[in-house]
């Protein structure tokens, strides 16, 4: 199945294609690069953990929140926080950040739930760890739904 056949935004599809084009050790290296490129929290969120939601399914502490912008497209800004000693968790967050950040809310809601399984890491990463990434995606979607309902 090709990535483009699904409801996967182009910027996320490109990342999945990159992972799939590689052998397993390189995939892990790429995930490590994503962990390094995950941006720090912006000033208005840094030091305010109560504004973020913990993704308890992750085996390492990971927090996230998002803001939906004005305008008909409802662009979504996603913010993650995870410690440097949790590179795998940071890597997953980095993939989702680069793949989803800034997209319209409706596009993110349409992303298939099995995206984490498409990175080709299911052998190297245990199901429990991959579930952490699925949980991040699920919580991003739920936060979008909640935020829209609250308007």
């Amino acid at each position, binding site marked *: 199945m090709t990535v483009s056949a699904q409801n996967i935004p182009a910027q996320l599809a490109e990342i999945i294609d990159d992972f799939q084009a590689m052998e397993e050790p390189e995939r*892990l*290296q790429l*995930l*490590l690069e994503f*962990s390094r490129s995950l941006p720090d929290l912006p000033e208005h969120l840094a030091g305010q953990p109560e504004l973020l939601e913990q993704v*308890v*399914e992750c*085996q*390492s502490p990971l927090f996230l929140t998002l803001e939906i912008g004005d305008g008909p497209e409802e662009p979504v800004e996603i913010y993650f926080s995870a410690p*440097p*000693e*949790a*590179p*795998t*968790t940071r*890597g997953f967050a980095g993939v989702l950040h680069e793949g989803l950040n800034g997209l319209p809310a409706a596009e993110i809601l349409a992303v298939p739930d099995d995206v984490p399984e498409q990175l080709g890491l299911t*052998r*190297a*990463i*245990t*199901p*429990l*760890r991959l*579930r952490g990434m*699925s*949980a991040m995606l*699920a*919580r991003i979607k*739920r936060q979008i739904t909640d935020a829209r309902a609250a308007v």
Partner: protein
Amino acid sequence: MSSRCNGLPSLWRMMTGAKVVSSCLWLGWAETTPDEWKGFAMPVVAAEQNEKFAAYAHPERLVSTDWLAANLDADSLVVVESNEDILLYETGHIPGAVKIDWHTDLNDALTRDYIDGEAFAALLGSKGITRETTVVIYGDKSNWWAAYALWVFTLFGHEDVRLLDGGRDKWIAEGRELTTETPKPAAVEYPVVERRDEAIRAFLPDVFEHFGKPLIDVRSPEEYSGERTTMPAYPEEGTLRGGHIPSAASVPWARAAAADGTFRNREELEAIYKGEAGLNEGDEVIAYCRIGERSSHTWFVLKHLLGFENVRNYDGSWTEWGNAVRVPIVKGAEPGEVPAARR
């Protein structure tokens, strides 16, 4: 072959160099060791002596960060990093340390089991570890996964395997050297030894036979009680039922660790496991968690630090017990009664 040292193929001898040969001489392997490698091997690298360790039943199973820093270059010592986070080693590790991943290296890919003797021999040989090598394992999260690796090494009877007290976090907290350079050890020969599960590994039927003797559940209090920890519409855990094995005492694994990740001292550990959990000298104990990793940490504490001779880790743990057909569980904070014998 009359001995491993004298009968080595010359190619292997060339690859490994004098280091291993000299350790063989030190060990006195030459004329006394049969083809089987299961005999007793004296530790090549002398055990650390200090007051804290001396109080434990088997002080030779631990090394401190100071000791490791001073012995990093010792011949016949290999440092192994084993983490929960599969990428952590790549971000920086103790110089010379090799990585072993519990999931991809130690588990069989097709059966829910550990690798066999041949795979273990291939793995260790590729890491530059011989049967006589002193192996020091360390990892993240207070050595949770390092203890798991040590337990698997023990299934294969690797004689000299130790944990770095405080693990990765303590080494880093002390500002010690890290490197991202991955060592490329020359492959050495590790013998194919049969895995021996019975002494330290329990299976589901063993737990039924064990009822009436102590069980320790090392998971979190929420997992023990069976209380829901996930909310509706959130991904669910893979176990159908929440709760614990009837009669098991709850002692979350991390209680054995101090704030800096080192093991608590003997007195503190006695207070927890004998005082609170009610274990008595000579008890046979089975520990379990979700898949057997956290309980390896407790297994290490009970076996090597407190000296319980007969401790088994039930690695099927809650993911097996909590899902198995016609297997009783208890919900809530109390241990519950020992179930009546089956049939």
